[in-house]
Each structure stands twice: as structure tokens, then as C-alpha cells.
């Protein structure tokens, strides 16, 4: 199997606080990997180090075998790495369709061609397909800022897939989403994973969501990787139970 993401001995400290300590793992093509851990366990720091928003103190990140440590997020995105955010990060002034076109346009032709080419960079059909896929058809022309929280979460996820990424990192996709929308989001993520074979890494606090979505789960506690396994293995792991319950 091909390793899409390979993290080796990653460490990052903030002053005296060691947020991530010597974390290593691989993610295979098409896999949906979950990363869980109590608050302050270093999940977000790990994500930010992988995504180029933070430079790790030590260690290496490879995507498709290429070292990408310290590359800027825009450069990583152009290499097929996409992400969603914990807090909503859509563009409220743009319509749903415009948000999706924006999410794909930097992957279309040269910058100069984009200046002189069509306004939609030829992405309207792709955006419409994504709108249909995430069942946002009735909202295509609406300003993103006018959508409900759950609908914006769906749009945020749809934006991550507009450029046909190899690897998508989802930061708490279920946070604040109601149960109906959550089921829809999970079902759509599983469908797009099956369809495109894109690889997912998911940080999530909602245990039910992460256990039912992911095929493999890593557990972080105090910056260290303390367990890895299938959802069933993780549920019964005593180290995980202790990390969460503290006894």
C-alpha cells in the first residue's frame, strides 16, 4: 500500500510546554484516520505542524514520499493537501457557488491565464457537481454568511474537495453540528472517500462520530501517541480510558 502521509518523530514546544513529543505515524491511501485525545493533548498543534501553519522543532512530514516540512499552507494545498477548520471559515460575502469556485481556482491554469480567462476559471460545472454532492443545490446562489451553522460546515467540507485533493485533514468536522446534519456530513464524507479514494485525517471530540467514520484511530495524550488501532481496539484500551477518565 502507498503511504500518502508519513509523519516521523515530530516535536513542537511552546516555551517550556512540550505540545507534541516525538509523534510518528503513517496514513495509507484511501484510509480515514482519526486522531483523538483529551483537551490540550496536542492534536491541533500536530495538525498545524503537518499543514505548515507551525514549523516543527524536530521531525519530518512527507506527503506522497516528498518532504513537505515547513512548506507554506498554499504550497501544500497545491500539492494536494486540503483541510477544513474547527471554527467556520467560509467566505460570508460570497455565494455558496463562489466559495466553491474560489476553493478550486488556484489549481486551474497559470495565474496570468486566470486573469485573462473566464470569471469562473471554468469551474462552474465542478462547483455545481460539488453542490449537488453535498446537497446544497437550493442554496447555490445564497451568500454563505446567510446559511445555518450546519450548512456552512457542509460547505466548508465541500470546499476542501474542490481541488481534488489526495489528502484532506478535517479539524473537528462534527463540532456544533446537529444530529441530522451530522449524519448527512458523515454519509457524504464516506461517499466521497469511496468515490475519490482521497485519504482523510480527522481530529474529533465526538466519539460516536469518529468511531463510526474512521477505519483506524490514534490517541494522543500530553503530546505523545499512546495508542493506535481500530475503533474497537481503542474503546477497550486501558491507556486510552485512563487518559480520558484519569484513573
Amino acid at each position: 500500500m502507498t503511504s500518502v502521509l508519513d509523519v516521523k518523530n515530530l516535536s513542537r514546544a511552546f516555551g517550556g510546554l512540550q505540545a507534541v513529543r516525538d509523534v510518528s505515524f503513517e496514513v495509507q491511501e484511501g484510509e480515514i484516520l482519526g486522531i483523538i485525545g483529551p483537551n490540550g493533548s496536542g492534536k491541533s498543534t500536530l495538525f498545524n505542524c503537518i499543514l505548515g501553519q507551525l514549523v516543527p522543532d524536530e521531525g519530518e512530514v512527507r506527503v506522497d514520499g516528498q518532504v513537505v516540512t515547513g512548506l507554506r499552507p498554499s504550497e501544500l494545498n497545491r500539492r494536494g493537501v486540503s483541510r477544513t477548520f474547527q471554527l467556520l471559515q467560509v467566505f460570508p460575502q460570497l455565494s455558496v457557488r463562489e466559495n466553491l469556485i474560489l476553493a478550486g481556482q488556484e489549481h486551474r491554469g497559470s495565474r496570468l491565464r486566470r486573469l485573462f480567462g473566464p470569471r469562473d476559471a471554468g469551474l462552474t460545472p465542478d462547483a455545481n457537481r460539488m453542490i449537488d454532492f453535498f446537497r446544497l443545490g437550493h442554496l447555490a446562489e445564497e451568500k454563505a454568511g446567510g446559511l445555518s451553522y450546519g450548512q456552512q460546515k457542509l460547505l466548508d467540507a465541500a470546499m476542501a474537495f474542490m481541488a481534488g485533493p489526495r489528502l484532506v485533514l478535517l479539524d473537528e468536522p462534527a463540532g456544533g453540528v446537529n444530529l441530522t446534519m451530522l449524519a448527512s456530513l458523515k454519509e457524504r464524507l464516506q461517499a466521497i472517500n469511496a468515490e475519490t479514494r482521497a485519504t482523510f485525517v480527522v481530529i474529533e471530540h465526538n466519539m460516536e462520530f469518529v468511531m463510526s467514520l474512521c477505519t483506524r484511530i490514534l490517541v494522543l495524550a500530553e503530546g505523545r501517541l499512546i495508542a493506535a488501532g481500530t475503533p474497537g481496539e481503542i474503546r477497550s484500551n486501558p491507556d486510552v480510558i485512563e487518559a480520558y477518565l484519569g484513573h
Partner: protein
Amino acid sequence: MSRSALRWSLGLVLLGLVLVFVPVNLTDYGLPYPGLKRYGTYIMTLWLVTAVAAMGVNLIVGYSGQETLAQAAFLGIGAYTTALLTKAGIPFGLAFAASGLLAFVVGILLGIPALRVQKHYLAFVTLAFAVMAWLVFRNEQWLTGGVMGLSGIKRPVVFGINTRPFLTFYWFVLAVTAILTFCMWWMLRSPWGRAFTALRENPVRAESLGIDVRLYKLLTFAIGSAYGGFAGALYAPLVEFIDPSPFALSQSFLYLLMVVVGGAGSFLGPFVGAAIAVLLPEWLRFTETYYLLIYAFLVMLLMAFCPGGIVALVLRLKAALLPKAGKVQP
């Protein structure tokens, strides 16, 4: 063509006709409109030149969310470049292009270190540059003529037509402004414009979507500065004499203010803001030295009740009076 496109096209043609004929005496053609005299036409031309510079500020401030306090300095770069080159016998077209290009290059050079700083710090970097540029205009007498300035700047001959008469020069500036406005409109409606909006609203998210935020910021800053250079290239033959005073720091504040007053991030904002900045002193001439005080008071009122500027105010009024006319554009 859709109905809205048709309406826009008709509106543009009408606006174009009004702008072309507004200074013309139509009484000879049996119409009761005496046109504008030399001074009125000069004010209209100055409005166009100011609007070009303000369009550049609007790109930097309104569309890409950066700050600049150096537009008057870029205007100065353009004005002195055009004055020096045309006086040396270089055709106006080349001098005009060189003015924009030089302002663009200086914008890039100023923008590279400025990218390391954000918002107010960027404003301070441009402020320092504005002061430095003004000192160069004032002190480097061998090049700029110092406080004595440069005189005898000729108006160009374009396709065999001498633009020396004030009305011809107005039409020439109107044509150049129309071309620059079209270029700005094209850029803002292209995927570049969408990227500008993204980097203004949420640079972290924009970067995660593959938008090279640093490059786009640099480009908007340099292109906005180039518009200052182009405006300067038109300003020099308009006034036919330049000295450092119109390119001082206080003037840069005025360019920023006119964009805010007109409506930052609105396409028409710079034209409205420039009209107020150029026409208000004329309308308030009777108030003599109280003019700036009244201007400041009006700006404070506007900012308190409608921070989106006059364009947003008009849209709000339109929405209130004609609820079915559509949604308010932010």
C-alpha cells in the same frame, strides 16, 4: 443579453455621453446648456485624475484589506517621471507607461519588507516612505527642481491631435480613465478579484485554499501604487507645473479618506470620494478657512452612521425606499 446586463450597458452609455458632453457648450446646437468654462473643465479633469489614484488606494485598502499612506508619493513619482521624460523629448505614451511601471516597481520593493508586517504597521512603513519620497522631491533640486518645481510640462499630442486645449485634454484624460477603469473592473471580476476578497476576509483560510496570500498582497499593493503613478502622469500635463506640495504626506491621508468616504471595497467608491474631495472645496469656498473643519465633521458623521461610505448609504436609502429593488450590496 439579460435584462440586467442591458440596463447596465445602457446606463454606461448614458454616463459616457454625459461625461463627454458635460463641459461642452450646447447652446450652438439649440440646447439650453452653456457647458463648463475653463475652470469647471479643469475641476472635472482633476476629479478624473484623483479618481484614478483613489482607484489604486481602493484596490489596496478596500479589496485586499491592506493600508497605504503613500499614494501621493506614488502620484509624485508618476508626475516627476512624466515631466522629466517629456521635457527630455520622450513621447508622452512612453513616459506614461514608465510612470506606472516605476510606481509598480517601487511598490514591489516597498511591499516586500512590508509583507512582514500587517495592517497598522504596514501603514507606518508607507508613511515613512511617503515622507522620504517628499524629501527627495523637495531636496534633490538637480532632478526635481526642489521647491521651485518643474515648469513648462507640455500636454501630449495623441494620434496627431494636440491636447493643449482644455476641452481636448479633458477628453483625453476621460479616455485614459475609462481604459484604466475597465482594466480595474476586469481584474476585480476575474478570479484574481475573488482571491483579493478572500485574502481580505480571511487570509488563513485563503492560504489553505492554495491562494498565495503574500504574492497577491504584493501584487495588489504594486498595482494600486501603479495607479498612483498613472494618475501622476496625467496630473503633470494637467497643471503644467509641478512642485512637491501635492505629493506631501497630508495628501496621502486625503486619498485614503476619499476612499473611505466614497466606500472602501465598492467599485464606485473612489469616484464618489474623489468627487467630494475635489468638489467640496469649491462648494464650501464661501466658508474660507472653515472648509477642513466642515469636511472633518461631515466625515465623522458619515463614519458614525454609515461606515460603508456614501455608496453604501445610497444603497441603504434605495433599499429603504424601494424594498423590492433588491438586496443591499455590502
